[in-house]
């Protein structure tokens, strides 16, 4: 796992070999779909996942891998397309927003049936959204915290009342918070919905054996059933990347999630297989502890020994550290050139990306030393860096250590078991932590929780009233150009204060048998199989 990530993101980062399409090292260009080859009806598509999904309940689900399974059986009010634009799925058109920005009206697609044959209507949407907001243990509650209430306007229209204007709402409803569950099934199963989930989707839940497989079968009630080709999808759990790859080669599975970076070249070279790639929405980097003394979400406070030091107290020292790092070299040495260097939290493929959002400081160890001299610190300056205790995590740490030495830093690596690292860094017991984020469609999801004062993921203890204000402004306006500009300014501010040093961005990889067509993968990394099947 990567240095920088929160758990699931970590898995994504490392298991995914990342790279720009051009850097994969083959003449055949990599794509995000299996193309338009005709696909015949019938057959069982076997998809190997890298991890066991957690509960198949959209309200309670937390793992990224679970989203791939949901994408085949639980549609959402909105979805994203390959250009990362929000498009309607169960909604009939994009939402309309009131002048004050506090009421969002959504028309529901008509004539849509759940897998149990009951009808989708506004009441069903309200039931699901209310459950997401209020069920104990809901993983969606914080995503929908801006929602004050949901009203049924008529059988095909809901109005969502907001506490304050919240532009990212449509993006939130394009993820699990927008999944609508059958009210009849919810009533019948209650909190045990995960053992027999019923939604609207091209496939419906059939069976699950823990640690082994999840089986879905084609849903004849699906509103677009003609597009669905395969009769059945079997998700198998194959945690080991080599085993996953071998099973694809032997034909025992048809699609594999996240082939390892080391297998990417072999996968591309094999004429029986195809590689799908897409940019990732997330980032990897280093979080620096500026003022997280009492724990994440607690008010920032000056650090105490052994975590206090010039890194926390002097922005010049943090800049010196960043200047000593060579992002290109890290990508080349640690990730075989398969990732992309990154200097900000917004993917270049996002409509919210701008020159300001992608601005990158140069690699300049001489300038780094100069800054350290200005700051009056004795070199080499000792700093500690927590890295994930994995081969990739340690290699990244060693690369950072070697580069920072040139800039005048003596980096003490602390390889730590990942869960333990998260516990320690949440509690503020660290100086620097190599961690990252899997990414969200709306830039707010990549920024707000990390850099706003007392944000839920702000383990740096960073606080800047200007940043807080601009994040709130960007949430409050639906004008894309204005939001793009605000995010550019926020990133410039963050780069000035440097609570986070963004380093690189992964690329999503999926391996597919050449016999299979219709598989799609967008930057969210989800393997979409709605129209997938075996080629004619």
């Amino acid at each position, binding site marked *: 796992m990567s240095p920088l990530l929160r758990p699931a993101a970590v898995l994504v980062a490392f298991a995914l070999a990342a790279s720009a399409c051009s850097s994969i090292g083959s003449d055949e260009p990599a794509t995000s779909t299996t193309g338009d080859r005709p696909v015949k009806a019938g057959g069982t598509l076997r998809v190997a996942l890298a991890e066991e999904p957690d*509960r198949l309940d959209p309200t309670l689900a937390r793992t990224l891998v679970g989203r791939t399974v949901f994408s085949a059986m639980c549609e959402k009010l909105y979805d994203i397309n390959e250009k990362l634009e929000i498009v309607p799925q169960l909604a009939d058109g994009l939402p309309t927003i009131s002048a004050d920005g506090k009421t969002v009206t959504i028309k529901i697609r008509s004539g849509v049936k759940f897998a149990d044959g009951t009808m989708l209507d506004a009441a069903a949407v309200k039931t699901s959204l209310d459950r997401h907001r209020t069920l104990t*243990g809901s993983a969606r509650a914080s995503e929908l915290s801006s929602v004050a209430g949901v009203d049924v306007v008529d059988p095909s229209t809901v109005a969502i009342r907001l506490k304050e204007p919240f532009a990212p709402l449509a993006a939130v409803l394009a993820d699990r918070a927008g999944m609508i569950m059958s009210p009849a099934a919810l009533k019948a199963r209650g909190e045990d919905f995960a053992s027999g989930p019923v939604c609207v989707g091209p496939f419906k839940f059939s069976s699950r054996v823990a640690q082994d497989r999840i089986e879905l079968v084609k849903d004849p009630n699906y509103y677009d059933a003609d597009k669905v080709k395969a009769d059945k999808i079997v998700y198998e759990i*194959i945690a*080991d990347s080599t085993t996953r790859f*071998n099973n694809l080669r*032997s034909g025992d599975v048809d699609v594999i999630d996240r082939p390892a970076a080391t297998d990417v070249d072999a996968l591309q070279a094999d004429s029986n297989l195809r590689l799908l790639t897409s940019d990732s929405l997330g980032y990897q980097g280093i979080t620096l502890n500026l003022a997280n003394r009492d724990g994440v979400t607690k008010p920032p406070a000056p650090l105490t020994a052994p975590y206090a030091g010039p890194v926390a107290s002097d922005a010049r020292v943090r800049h010196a550290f960043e200047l000593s790092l060579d992002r290109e070299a890290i990508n080349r040495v640690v990730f075989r050139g398969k990732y992309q260097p990154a200097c900000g939290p917004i993917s270049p493929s996002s409509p919210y990306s701008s020159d300001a959002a992608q601005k990158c400081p140069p690699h300049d160890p001489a300038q780094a030393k100069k800054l350290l001299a200005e700051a009056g610190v004795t070199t080499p300056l000792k700093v500690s860096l927590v890295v994930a205790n994995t081969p990739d995590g340690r290699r990244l740490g060693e690369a950072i250590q070697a580069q920072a030495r040139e800039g005048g830093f003596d980096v003490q690596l602390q390889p730590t078991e990942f869960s333990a690292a998260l516990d320690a860094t949440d509690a503020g017991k660290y100086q620097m932590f190599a961690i990252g984020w899997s990414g969200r469609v709306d830039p707010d999801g990549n920024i707000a929780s990390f850099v706003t004062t007392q944000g*839920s993921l702000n383990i740096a203890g960073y606080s800047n009233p200007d940043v807080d204000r601009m994040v709130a402004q960007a949430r409050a306006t639906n004008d894309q150009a204005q939001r793009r500009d605000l995010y550019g300014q926020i990133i410039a501010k963050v780069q000035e204060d440097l609570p986070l040093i963004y380093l690189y961005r992964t690329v999503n990889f999926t391996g597919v048998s050449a016999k299979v067509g219709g598989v799609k993968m967008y930057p969210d990394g989800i393997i979409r199989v709605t129209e997938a099947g075996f080629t004619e």
Partner: protein
Amino acid sequence: MRRYLLRRLLESVVTLILVTMVVFAGVRALPGDQVRALAGEEADPAALEQLRHEYGLDQPIPVQYARYVAKAFSGDLGTSARTGLPVADTIRHALPVTLQLSAFAVVIAVLIGLTTGVLAAVRRRTAAEWAANTVALLGLSVPNFWFGLMAVLIFAIAFPVLPASGFVSVFDNPVESFRHLLMPAVVLGSGLAAVIMRQCRSAMLEALGADYVRTARAKGLGGAQVVLGHALRNSLIVVTTIVGLQLGVLISGAVVTEQIFVLPGFGKLTIDAVFTRDYPLIQGVVLVTATAYIGLNLLVDLLYSVIDPRVRVGGAVAQ
């Protein structure tokens, strides 16, 4: 006899309680708890606390343990923290996989081990003995994961004659079951086959030099009859003991084999449960394993006491 039985039962219960207590505390001593592992990157501290409260993880460990034991007594092993599925169902699906794999592995190990062992003993100082010894050495020294990967590369990818992964129960489709389990069983049984071969060889060498074999030969019995009917039959006592002793090793080897061949067995379940810090599942797995182990030991002890009355008398005296 009744006192002896009671004492052994009591000891078993105490052992079981101790094992579960150690595991219960042990998994909680691992850094990062099940909520942290489950929450992944979406680790809003307030949500984590809420989940910990929901799972009762904010209670003192003795309280958590008491609750667990109370439920376990009524047959409720809880639900998996990760999948939300009942632990008992999950274990029920996994157990037959490992049992079928292990049984097949033992059959293969015995077949290979006995054949090569007998051959090595009978054809002493020939190429056959050398070959058998080499096979045994390889079986002992090649790690399962490497052997497994090579087998997949050769028999599933280069010459696709066997499936690379998956499980079919022998009761559902014996032919497909055989095809799916052949590679994993050979890989798993290879170490045991080597042990059996060496033991069989030395036992056979001893037997072939024994008086009763010389007598059998003197009576004019044929070579095969002497080797198989007399020498091997006596050597089997040693071999049987070895197989019994090695069963535990075999089942722990199934952990690796199940990972390589993606068999949804007990070993894979255990490893995955530990990695995801799935407390209820880890506890369930340990409880079932410990109960089975203690139960078997109890049975064997009781059988000893039936066969050899001195055991039970000794036990009574010791009291």
